[in-house]
């Protein structure tokens, strides 16, 4: 597995984990048809935490974080995000979704809109921000991900790394309190992985609550405050990164780490 080392020292001055609960998942189960994909998940995420979720393919990592903004429905147990419980009540769902940003493996930018329009769409239509203000915010975040000059282009005209940074900026424009990342770098070439990881590190430095499914163990070691290992739909082990990598407890974790490191 590629390990992309970021050369920069991490500025930890704003990385605090508060004791405010951001996400509370209790006894959550999910089935796809008769396939039990998530089993008895219990997870509490505090504000300011940077959690990396790893595990073998098909272990349910994507499904877990997609449950957090209800792209997937869970069947039993409860998920409370920012004090709002996710039920079939669509109002709650839309509220949670506007508080939680999500970045996908395949970017999922809207190809018929320019970069700027991609960024302003949700603020204008969901948050009812005036267009001018939305565009200013959008330019601010484009500068943050270092591609303000691409604002008028269409996503199809950008490189993969640039597209993923636009996707991150698009989520940030909604001023989310929590960011979910589902393998944001695994569709990218190595040099592009670095630019995306740098963006994510900056975000972490500002104290954003983040849940990242990723195989970038370098990123996990440097940035995460907790690493969660999943296998067969269960949380098998979680620990702070140095312990997790140097002193894994379960056999499955040891096997997994031996395969990817």
């Amino acid at each position, binding site marked *: 597995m590629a390990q992309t080392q970021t050369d920069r020292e991490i500025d930890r001055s704003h990385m605090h984990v508060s004791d405010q609960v951001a996400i509370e998942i209790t006894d959550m189960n999910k089935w796809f048809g008769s396939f039990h994909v998530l089993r008895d998940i219990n997870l509490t995420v505090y504000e300011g935490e940077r959690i990396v979720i790893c595990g073998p393919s098909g272990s349910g990592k994507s499904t877990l974080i997609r449950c957090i*903004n209800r*792209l997937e429905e869970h069947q039993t147990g409860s998920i409370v995000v920012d004090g709002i419980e996710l039920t079939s009540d*669509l109002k709650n769902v*839309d*509220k949670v*979704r*506007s508080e*939680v*940003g*999500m970045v*996908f493996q*395949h970017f*999922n*930018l*809207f*190809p*018929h809109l320019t970069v700027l329009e991609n960024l302003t*769409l*949700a603020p204008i*239509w*969901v948050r009812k921000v005036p267009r001018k203000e939305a565009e200013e915010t959008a330019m601010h975040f484009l500068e943050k991900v270092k591609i303000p000059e691409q604002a008028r*282009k*269409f*996503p*199809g*005209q950008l490189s993969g790394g640039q597209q993923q940074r636009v996707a991150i900026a*698009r*989520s940030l424009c*909604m001023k989310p309190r929590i960011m979910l990342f589902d393998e944001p770098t695994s569709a990218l070439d190595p040099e592009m992985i670095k630019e995306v990881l740098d963006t994510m590190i900056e975000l972490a430095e500002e104290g954003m609550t983040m849940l990242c499914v990723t195989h970038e163990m370098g990123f996990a070691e440097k940035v995460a405050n907790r690493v969660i290992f999943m296998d067969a739909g269960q949380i098998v082990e979680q620990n702070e990164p140095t312990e997790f990598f140097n002193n894994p407890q379960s056999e499955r974790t040891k096997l997994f780490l031996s395969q990817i490191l």
Partner: protein
Amino acid sequence: MENTSFVRTEMLPETEPPRSTTGVLGWIRDNLFNGVLNSILTILSLAFIYYLLSMLLPWSISPTWGAKSLNECREILGATGREHGGACWGVINERWSQILYGFYPEELRWRPTLTFFLLFVAMIPILFNMISRRMNWLLLVLVLFGASFAVENSALMVVVKIVLGLSLAYLAYTVVKTDRDDRAEQIKEGAKRLPNPLYFTAIYVFLMPWLLWGGSIWSPVAAALGFLVGWLAFRLLAPIAGNLASLILAVIAAGVWWLLLIGPFTGLMNGLAPIGLIPVESRLFGGMLLSLTIGVVAIAASLPLGIVLALGRKSDLLIVKWLSVGFIEFIRGVPLITLLFVASMLLNIFMPPGTDFDIILRVIIMATLFASAYMAEVVRGGLAALPTGQYEAADALGLDYWKAQRLVIMPQALKISIPGIVSTFIGLFKDTTLVSIIGLLDPIGLSSTIRADLAWNGIVWELYGFIALLFFIFTFLMSRYSMYLERRLRTDHS
């Protein structure tokens, strides 16, 4: 083994492509004669084209424009020594206006003509996004100014002409004087913008039937007011009753207006200010006027209806889903002619006696339903081609179902479906000729009438050729427009 290492020391300069691949000769060689098979095909095609033209051209170049009957044509041709070898264009010269307008009263034909030109003015802001507001309004005033000359002269018309002429001159002056960029600058600095031309498009929806069928002006005004009533009801109730409830109440309010209050309102207004145009009955409509009326209205209505059906078919609500599927499958399974017969005969049986349900309106409804079933499938194809990631991204940003559809899904799905949508439009437009089966005089129906005239008995090619040409003009424009639109909406490369 030889040493294969190699380092370039000098970069190569850019050079011209070889002569034989550029210019006319290069093009001919590349596109017509590259290879034996291609050369043979090229020669065969050229021979075929030559054969066709050698038959068509002498036939169509024929000095019969002034002939008053088929016999006269034959005499003219006989005098030039080509008894059967020429077209008889006299029939087109004598009857072209009938093929265009049917039996629409001659002195009122300026009304459909004006409607036709206004149609373009109304469509431009929808079809093209690069035309400026000023150009659009200029065009509208130009068409109205032209039309004012077709109306009988009276003191009022003189005033109208002067007003239109002056505003035309003024608009033209501003367009010539300030170019678009200057105007954009002025607007940035706070200069007043002209109203959005889409307002005229909205008005046109009500203007069109009034111009074509005539009658009191208060009927279209009252119909339009129904929307205003609904909108007002929604605006007033939304803060109190919530969105969905007030939407339903607004629809009810508009319905009450249309069903119960329209009669008294038009009666009252007609008493106060009896303004109107001479009414024209539907049975007088004919020719291209009839085809275009049915075609344009059905085209405009079938796209939104088709979108709704396509969404219904994909809906999670089972009843909505099965209704949509049932409707689509039923309509697609029945020939259009059957539906037209239902429109012309059966509907009368189901209607309460005494209701006068206009035959053209009935045909329009059937044609719309027919086309919308096909449209729904075309749009569904576009929806299916969208990756699920687009839905997920829209969801994850917190867009609700309708906003996601409107802003993210539909723009992409419709763009993918453009070729299919336009094919459906073209098919629908050509299908309007089927109304001749239920006795309406579309161009094909009229051609039978014309051939029943003793003077023109025996004419075939000239009439059908002319009608084909008229249809071809419109369908070709549609297909060109769709290609333009596809090019305009391409965003995958610079």
